[in-house]
């Protein structure tokens, strides 16, 4: 390992600009003549729009234009799309209602887009928006996930019972048979609470139109600018693909919420041409709460069957997934193909059957949020496994160990073919780091102080780098899930890598450069990573689902291989040797068995001056591209152990210890990986203890600010003990599995398992607030009084 190569804890190159305030985010861009957009949003969860009178608004000072859904329709601008087709059990395609960028006839959630004002200043745009008169016929709303299918309120005409799909996966008969022969069945009811993503940088869009060239430019907070361009051109139709440049500059966190193509960026690009001015919109925090796609929101009943030896025989799951008022870009895939295929966890479960009902409600759209489906699946599996172990009076660690998959590859009953792993190794290491042996002593010590101590496991698995494209296409995906890379070597030997991945906190500018430095043997500061601009990078699928290492870097590795192959040809000419004798090692091209060699930079120069070879034999230049489509998902897995102490007088839960042992395959930069683990756990702890989006019955978002929506803070968290085990991933050239979501996937069940262990009973929902824990502690103390 070199100081900057694969495996080195290189400090993040991008932090120079981030920590000195030099980052450039969308809102930092200002274009000459720029005007401002302000969206008038629905104050009602559900209402028919009788009329919208924009007359007065149009004459307000500074107002340039006021647009409604009619104006978009007149210009034949299409609605927003959902890019994954799900088929119900009966084979019918999902029933999705229209999703106009500006409401047409109806609003369906608080925050829905009614009209947009474009004005000289934001304040003037807001003033003008207040002058818009909307005549609403307010309708009753449906907000509750479990109630949606039974409600008399119908969100979309095309979706009876508010049901988008009744989907299933697995073998129902085999699962029934497994349950029929079970010795023991454990049942659980779970709610996976709705979360608001809250990246620190809110969404923003700046649209611009050049009348001279007919070119459009969109600066946007996107995790996948090429996908945004494709959707905006091919589906929504605001601009032809070759005329639209999408730039996603520095982006301050996404967590999934910036994958999707929203109304605001659509309108900004379109309106820029209409008003002949660049148009900027920057979300405020309230808008982010109301209208960023939310995450999770499942209601689940699950059952696990075990035999007389405590071996798991089967799992059956029924989930209702709240999709919100409209189908966001990838919403339909999250509670289906990103969820149910993970229900085998790390366990050898012969039969699994899962049914998922996707429902509309009068709430913000729900889509992928850090982990996307996998945290929901892990919560079901790990809560159920823990509860089963407790009911069988078995040690939860040993119960897991007994049921672990030990032979690889392993085909689960729910699509996935796990390639490699060593789950017991992670468990052993975690038990050691967590000092599991002495837990009882610590519990007794807590009890002496009147406190309740508990310990919870989460033995999670996730699937990253969703692929291959052929397979996901057969499951309904509207896109391929490969990645592209282009490696441009300059005559001086420095290298620019153009990647279709997008960094919004992950540190790609460092880790990707480490790969290049390692493979080409050049200093890391000779490498730049270029991303986030469709005029520079030809195409790419972007960053989500922990895919950038496994897929994005594999594409770079493939392009590097081509660069080296070409370099050998150049070197052969220069060194007057046969190509077959040229070796590339430690950054030098040399003739085997001799001391004749050229540095990488010398070969680059020779490639460009092209003095030593003829154009007939070899093309000048040194630039190679690659598209990489993986052969399988990757399967990071690990064991997290959470130890809590509860103050029964107040219900306050303190996390005393956190042990995380993860197998992410080959690690490029352990410091960055640890950071990802820390951040992921923080988000998972947030879900378990603090966060929860609450709508009241009328559909108002009660938790629409940080005053009521509790984000995790540093002092809510312990100092984490992070350990690693490594089984290299066999399905990509780098052996990488991915680490971006593991913490958020692993953490919630670990916390809840610890709390239920401390309390001695299972009935606690997320977020486990002090009030909820106090109440549960009361019940546990006085079982007679519980009802």
């Amino acid at each position, binding site marked *: 390992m070199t100081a900057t190569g694969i495996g080195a804890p290189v400090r993040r190159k991008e932090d120079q600009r981030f920590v000195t305030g030099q980052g450039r985010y969308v809102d930092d861009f200002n274009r000459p003549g720029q005007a401002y957009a302000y969206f008038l949003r629905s104050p009602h969860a559900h209402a028919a729009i009788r009329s919208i009178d924009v007359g007065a608004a149009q004459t307000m000072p500074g107002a340039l234009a006021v647009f409604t859904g009619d104006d978009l329709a007149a210009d034949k601008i299409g609605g927003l799309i959902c890019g994954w087709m799900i088929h119900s059990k009966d084979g019918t395609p999902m029933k999705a209602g229209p999703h106009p960028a500006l409401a047409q006839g109806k609003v369906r959630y608080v925050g829905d887009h009614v009209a947009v004002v474009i004005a000289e200043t934001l304040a003037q745009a807001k003033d003008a928006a207040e002058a818009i008169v909307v005549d609403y016929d307010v309708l009753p709303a449906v907000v509750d996930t479990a109630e949606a299918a039974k409600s008399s309120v119908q969100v979309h005409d095309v979706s009876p019972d508010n049901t988008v799909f009744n989907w299933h996966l697995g073998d129902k008969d085999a699962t029934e048979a497994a349950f029929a022969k079970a010795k023991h069945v454990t049942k659980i009811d779970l709610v996976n609470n709705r979360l608001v993503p809250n990246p620190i940088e809110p969404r923003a869009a700046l649209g611009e139109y050049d009348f001279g060239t007919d070119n459009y430019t969109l600066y946007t907070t996107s995790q996948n600018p090429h996908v945004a361009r494709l959707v905006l051109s091919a589906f929504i139709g605001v601009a032809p693909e070759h005329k639209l440049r999408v730039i996603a500059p520095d982006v301050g966190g996404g967590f999934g919420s910036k994958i999707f193509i929203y109304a605001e960026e659509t309108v900004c690009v379109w309106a820029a041409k209409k008003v002949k001015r660049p148009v900027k919109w920057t979300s405020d925090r309230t808008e982010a709460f109301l209208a960023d796609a939310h995450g999770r929101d499942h209601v689940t009943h699950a059952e696990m069957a075990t035999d007389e030896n405590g071996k798991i025989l089967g799992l059956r799951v029924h989930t209702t997934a709240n999709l919100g008022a409209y189908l966001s870009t990838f919403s339909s895939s999250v509670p289906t193909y990103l969820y149910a295929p993970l229900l085998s966890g790390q366990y050898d479960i012969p039969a699994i059957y899962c049914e998922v009902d996707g429902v509309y409600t009068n709430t913000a759209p729900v889509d992928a949020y850090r982990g996307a489906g996998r945290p929901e699946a892990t919560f079901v599996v790990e809560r159920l496994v823990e509860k089963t172990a407790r009911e069988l009076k078995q040690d939860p660690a040993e119960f897991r160990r007994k049921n672990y998959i030990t032979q690889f590859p392993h085909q689960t009953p729910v699509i996935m073919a796990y390639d490699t792993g060593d789950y017991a190794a992670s468990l052993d290491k975690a038990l050691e780091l967590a000092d599991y042996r002495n837990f009882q002593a610590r519990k007794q010590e807590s009890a002496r102080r009147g406190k309740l101590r508990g310990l919870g496991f989460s033995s999670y698995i996730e699937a990253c780098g969703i692929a291959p494209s052929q397979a996901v296409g057969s499951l309904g995906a509207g896109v391929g899930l490969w990645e592209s890379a282009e490696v441009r070597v300059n005559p001086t030997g420095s290298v620019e890598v153009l990647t279709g991945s997008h960094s919004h906190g992950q540190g790609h500018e460092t880790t990707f450069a480490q790969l290049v430095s390692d493979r080409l043997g050049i200093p890391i500061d000779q490498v730049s990573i270029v991303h986030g601009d469709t005029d520079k990078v030809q195409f790419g699928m972007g960053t989500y689902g922990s895919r950038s290492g496994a897929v994005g870097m594999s594409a770079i590795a493939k392009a590097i291989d081509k660069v080296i192959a070409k370099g050998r040809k150049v070197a052969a000419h220069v060194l007057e040797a046969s190509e077959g004798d040229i070796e590339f090692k430690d950054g030098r091209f040399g003739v085997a068995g001799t001391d004749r060699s050229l540095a990488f930079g010398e070969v680059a120069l020779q490639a460009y001056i092209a003095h030593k070879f003829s154009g007939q034999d070899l093309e000048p230049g040194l630039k190679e591209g690659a598209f990489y489509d993986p052969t399988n998902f990757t399967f990071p897995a690990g064991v997290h152990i959470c130890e809590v102490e509860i103050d029964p007088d107040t219900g306050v839960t303190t996390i005393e210890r956190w042990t995380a042992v993860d197998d992410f395959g080959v690690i490029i930069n352990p410091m960055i990986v640890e950071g990802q683990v820390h951040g992921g756990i923080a988000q998972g702890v947030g879900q378990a203890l603090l966060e929860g989006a609450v709508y009241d019955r009328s559909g108002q978002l009660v938790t629409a600010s*940080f005053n009521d929506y509790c984000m995790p803070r540093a002092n809510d968290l312990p100092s984490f003990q992070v350990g690693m085990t490594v089984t290299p991933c066999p399905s990509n050239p780098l052996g990488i599995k991915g680490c971006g979501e593991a913490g958020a996937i692993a953490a919630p069940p670990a916390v809840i398992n610890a709390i239920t262990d401390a309390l001695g009973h299972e009935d606690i929902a997320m977020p486990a607030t002090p*009030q909820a824990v106090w109440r549960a502690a009361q019940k546990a103390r006085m079982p007679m009084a519980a009802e």
Partner: protein
Amino acid sequence: MYAFDYHRPTSARQAADLASQFEDMKFLAGGHTLLPTMKMRLAGPTNLVDLGQIAELRGIERSGDTLSIGAMTKHAEVAHSADVRQAIPALAELAEVIGDPHVRNRGTMGGSVANNDPSADYPAACLALNATIVTDRREIAADDFFQGIFTTALDEGEIITRIAFPVPSQAAYAKFRNPASRYALVGVFVARFADGVRMAVTGAGSNGVFRMPEMEQALAQNFAPEALNGIAAPEDEMNSDIHADAAYRAHLVGVMTRRAVQAAASRS
């Protein structure tokens, strides 16, 4: 935010004069309550009178058994003041757990007291310490000042200049933070004086900060947590929201009062 005219007087007198000229005006102190509501267009005063340049509203003074704190004193100044730490350490400790460092370095005691947010911390201290709210017109006893959520005895255009706190023999503040906002879900200030005990509860009551005479009498007899056994906060007078319902708040009043008494009693 709507447009407004901004004024920056240098004396309380000037401020009061300005206030009397405009119908729709607001005093601006730290701005930590006022400005967010203006930004969200929930408030739209046409005139803002900034109290920030008025020297007489600043400063912390101890004279005899009274600690007098200027209305424009920031929470961080209270938290770090040697005089406060020496006279009423519980008050400094209270100031230290208000919001976060940004808030503590902008928000003021006068702004907090004038605002009388039902989950603000200072009202509990004022009431339990039997403070006097001094304005540009009169002196108001804390018992008369706090009149329900966001409601005080202040008249239109009346300016809080100082708050005078009698120095207790022992006192403590126990705060159970709202996990999200970090305001008080339940905060209890207990103060022991030569002639009795006063306590006040913030965050919990559906009508704002309140005292519990039954607890005060019991603590006057025996200044120890056990004295509170059998005394419960009235559930039907408690606030209820997504963070805590009335029963939980009532329960926490008991827990936090015990903790405050414990802490105060262990103070020399």
